[in-house]
């Protein structure tokens, strides 16, 4: 496996959805290639950085579902709810 091929599989690799047969080629490449090791780490860290920057929590791809269920958006302010309801009542 080349670095280019490794990169193509990254999205499935970090979500844990990569075919085990491909993982068997992917991981030996990572062991041999320090540059790709840095890249994979930073790819994961980029996702975490984006989430932390907007206050979404640092959950990894696999743990994301539970984290997002815990990520409570504030409820709609009452005045906004009323403004919408008033607008739709107009003919």
């Amino acid at each position, binding site marked *: 496996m080349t*670095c280019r091929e490794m990169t193509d599989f990254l999205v499935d690799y970090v979500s844990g959805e990569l075919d085990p047969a491909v993982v068997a080629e992917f991981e030996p490449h990572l062991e041999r290639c320090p540059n790709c090791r*840095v890249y994979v780490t*930073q790819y994961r860290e980029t996702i975490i950085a984006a989430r932390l920057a907007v206050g979404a929590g640092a959950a990894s791809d696999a743990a994301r579902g539970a984290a997002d*269920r815990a990520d409570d958006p504030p409820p709609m302010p009452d005045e906004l709810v009323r*403004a*919408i309801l008033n607008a739709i009542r107009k003919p």
Partner: protein
Amino acid sequence: MLRMNGTPAPPDEAALVQGLRAGDPATFETLIRTYGGRLTQVARRILFNEEDAREVVQEAFISAFKAREQFSGDAKLSTWLHRITVNAALMKLRSKRRRPEEPIEDLVPRFLPNGRHTEVFRSWDEPVDVALERKETAQFVRDAIDRLPEAYRTVLILRDLQGLTGPETAEVLDTTVNAVKIRLHRARMALRTLLAPQMEGAAS
């Protein structure tokens, strides 16, 4: 299905659809209270502006009410509302966009003919959760997200920040699951490139 956090007991979808189609204001109020918080969050993440986000969500609910008879029931109500809100937010963004976007091709890694990276990647200085504790680093990351081309930024927001699944994102953006996956991958790679100069020297 969408993860509608912070909602009490999820209202019965079939009853909501029936009430919506009938134009029942009480049903519509339930819809607003159930999904409004999450929709405001997605609008805020696209627009980076609280006032614009509220305006967009208000417009989106009003359009949804007007278009209620067009709701087919093939999609979930939450996905349909996301779609209307995301489109309204993107229209607003286009009307006031001031920051130039970076072409995606300049931000994704390049390879030599033998398939190796052209670039040698330097490790980042400190763990990302430590770096992000600093307000200026968090702002840098938000600005970097804002520099991604719109098609990529939107997918990153819906998938990585809002936690929508691939199929939900595809439905909101009216595209395929595979297109969403490719755009998400390129968006993450591009964001990594934009973050690298800051993160390599983060602690200094």
